[in-house]
C-alpha cells in the first residue's frame, strides 16, 4: 500500500457562522515553537472586520432576546463539544510550545472556565440586578442588559486566555468580534469549528486571525461597535484604540495583567452590561 498523502487543514476566518477566507486573499505562516511550518492562517483585513461587525450586529438582537437559561444551555453545549475535541486541542497547544502536562492543564482549564461562565447565564441578573425601595407606590427594578456588539482583542494565551475573555462577553447576550492571539491563532479557529457545531447562532461569535495592530484600530473606531476589550493589545496600541473608541463613547476594558488560572470573578461579565431601571405603578 502506498503512503497516504497528508490532508492538511485550511485555517480560515469565522464570520457569521461561515468560514470564509480573508477578503484580501492574504495568509500568514504559522510556525511551531521550534520554527517549523505548521499551517497557513488567514490574515484578515479591515474589510473582514467590517463584515464581522455587520454579522455580529445582525445576530445581536436575537441572541439577547433568548432567555438566559437557553443561552446557558447553548454555551454548555459548546463545553460538551470542547470536551470531545480535547485531544486535538492538546496537540495544537503542544505545537505552540507547551509540554504535554501543561497543554492538558490548559485545555482542561479552558473547558472548566467555559462551563463556569455558562452557568452564569441565568444567574447574573439576580446578582447584578435589584428590586429597589422607592418612596412611592411603585415597583422599581434594575436589570442588567447586554451592551451590544463587543470587540475583543484576545490575549496571547491561545486557548484558556481566549475562552476567559470570550465567554463572559457572550454569556450575557452580547455578540463578539474577536481578534485572535497573533502568536498562536490556530486553536482559535479550532474553537470556531466547535462553535459552528454547537447551536451558537451564526454571527454571535466571529473570530479573525491576523495582525492585531492592523485590525484593532478599525474595530476601535467602528461606530457600530458598542464596547471593546483591549486585553490583548500592547501598551501603545491600547492607548491608540482607547482614543479612537472615545469617538462614539465605547465602553473600554483596559488591559491589565491577568492570571488566567485564577478565579475570574464576575468583573468581565459586568464590564459589558448596562443597567436598565424600570418603574411599575402599583395598584392601578
Amino acid at each position: 500500500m502506498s503512503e497516504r498523502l497528508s490532508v492538511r487543514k485550511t485555517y480560515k476566518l469565522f464570520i457569521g457562522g461561515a468560514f470564509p477566507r480573508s477578503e484580501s486573499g492574504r495568509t500568514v505562516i504559522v510556525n511551531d515553537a521550534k520554527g517549523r511550518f505548521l499551517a497557513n492562517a488567514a490574515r484578515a483585513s479591515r474589510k473582514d472586520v467590517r463584515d464581522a461587525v455587520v454579522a455580529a450586529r445582525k445576530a445581536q438582537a436575537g441572541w439577547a432576546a433568548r432567555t438566559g437559561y437557553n443561552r446557558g444551555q447553548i454555551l454548555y453545549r459548546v463545553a460538551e463539544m470542547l470536551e470531545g475535541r480535547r485531544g486535538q486541542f492538546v496537540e495544537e497547544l503542544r505545537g505552540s510550545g507547551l509540554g504535554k502536562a501543561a497543554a492538558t492543564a490548559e485545555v482542561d482549564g479552558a473547558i472548566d472556565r467555559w462551563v463556569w461562565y455558562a452557568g452564569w447565564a441565568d444567574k447574573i441578573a439576580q446578582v447584578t440586578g435589584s428590586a429597589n425601595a422607592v418612596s412611592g407606590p411603585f415597583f422599581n427594578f434594575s436589570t442588567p442588559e447586554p451592551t451590544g456588539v463587543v470587540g475583543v482583542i484576545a490575549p496571547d494565551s491561545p486557548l484558556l486566555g481566549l475562552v476567559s475573555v470570550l465567554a463572559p462577553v457572550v454569556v450575557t447576550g452580547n455578540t463578539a468580534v474577536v481578534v485572535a492571539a497573533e502568536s498562536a491563532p490556530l486553536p482559535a479557529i479550532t474553537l470556531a469549528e466547535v462553535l459552528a457545531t454547537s447551536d451558537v447562532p451564526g454571527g454571535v461569535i466571529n473570530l479573525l486571525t491576523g495582525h492585531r495592530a492592523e485590525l484593532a484600530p478599525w474595530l476601535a473606531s467602528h461606530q457600530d461597535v458598542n464596547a471593546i476589550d483591549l486585553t490583548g493589545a500592547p501598551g501603545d496600541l491600547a492607548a491608540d484604540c482607547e482614543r479612537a473608541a472615545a469617538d462614539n463613547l465605547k465602553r473600554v476594558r483596559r488591559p491589565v495583567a491577568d492570571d488566567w488560572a485564577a478565579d475570574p470573578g464576575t468583573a468581565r461579565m459586568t464590564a459589558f452590561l448596562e443597567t436598565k431601571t424600570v418603574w411599575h405603578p402599583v395598584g392601578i
Partner: protein
Amino acid sequence: MPDLSTFADAAAAPAELRGLLRGLPPVDQVGAEERAARLATRSIKKSAKAYAIDLAISMVDLTTLEGADTPGKVRALCAKAAHPDPADASVPKVAAVCVYSDLVGEAVRALDGTGIGVASVATAFPSGRAPLDAKLADTRRAIDDGASEIDMVIDRGAFLAGDHQKVFDEIVAVKAECGDVHLKVILETGELVTYDNVRRASWLAMLAGADFIKTSTGKVSPAATLPVTLVMLEAVRDFRAATGRQVGVKPAGGIRTTKDAIKYLVLVNETAGPDWLTPEWFRLGASSLLNDLLMQRRKLTTGVYGGPDYFTMD
C-alpha cells in the same frame, strides 16, 4: 435592430406590431448573464467611488409603497429626500419621491420648492388588474394632485397571452392622459419569465410612448437583476439609434447596497453609454439603499466605519 420603416402606425396595424416584436433578435441568455456578471466585478475606488455614490444618491427615487403608509411617513420621507444627511449639506438631494396616488398631495406639499419630483404609481399598481377606465381615473387623480411622474404597470396577463395590442393600447391611453407628465412603464420582469419577453415588452412600451421603462414593482421576486437591466439598457440604446428618441431606465426593487448601485452605474456606462448617466435618464427605485449610500459616503469622508444608529430609520 428591427426595421421601423414599415412601422408607421402600430395602433392601426396590429399585425405589424406583432410582426415587429416577433422579429426582435432573441437574447443570448448565457451571454447576457455572463456580461452582467463580468461588469459587476469592476473595482471602483477612491475618487471614482465618491463620484459614483453622489451620482447614485441623485438618481434615487425614494420609495414607500406599503399598505401602512401614513401622511406622516410620507412627510418624513420627503424631508429625507431633500436633506438625505442633515449633518452634511454637500450631500445631493434625491431625484424623486415615489408614493401611492392617494398620498401624492401630501408629498407635493412637503416637497414644495425643493425641485424634487413626485412620482406616483398608478393603473391598479402592483397587479395592473383593473378596467382601463379605472386605470385612467387613477392616473388622472395623481396628475391633478400634482404628480410630476407616473409609474404605470403593464397588463402582464395580456402580454403573456400574446395580446400585445391590448398592452400597447393601454400604454397609449395612459400616455395621452399624462400629456407632459413623465410616464414610466413598469414591465414587472419577474413575471415575464424570459429575457426575450423583457426585450419585447421594452420595445412595446417605448413604441407606445413611454418616457422611462422600469423593471419591477418591488412586490414580486425576483425584482431588478443585472441581466434584466442589461437587456433593457440595450433596448433603449437600440431604440434611440432607430428612432432618435431617448428613453430612460429605472431598475427597482432589491437594490440595497452601495455595491449593488455601483454595479448598475457601471452597467449603464458600458451598455447604453454616458448619455444615460444622469438622473434625467437613469433612476434607482429604492428605499433602504439611501442609508447605505450615506453610510459609505461618511466612511469616505471620515475614514471610519459608520453604523445604522447614525441614520434615520425608514
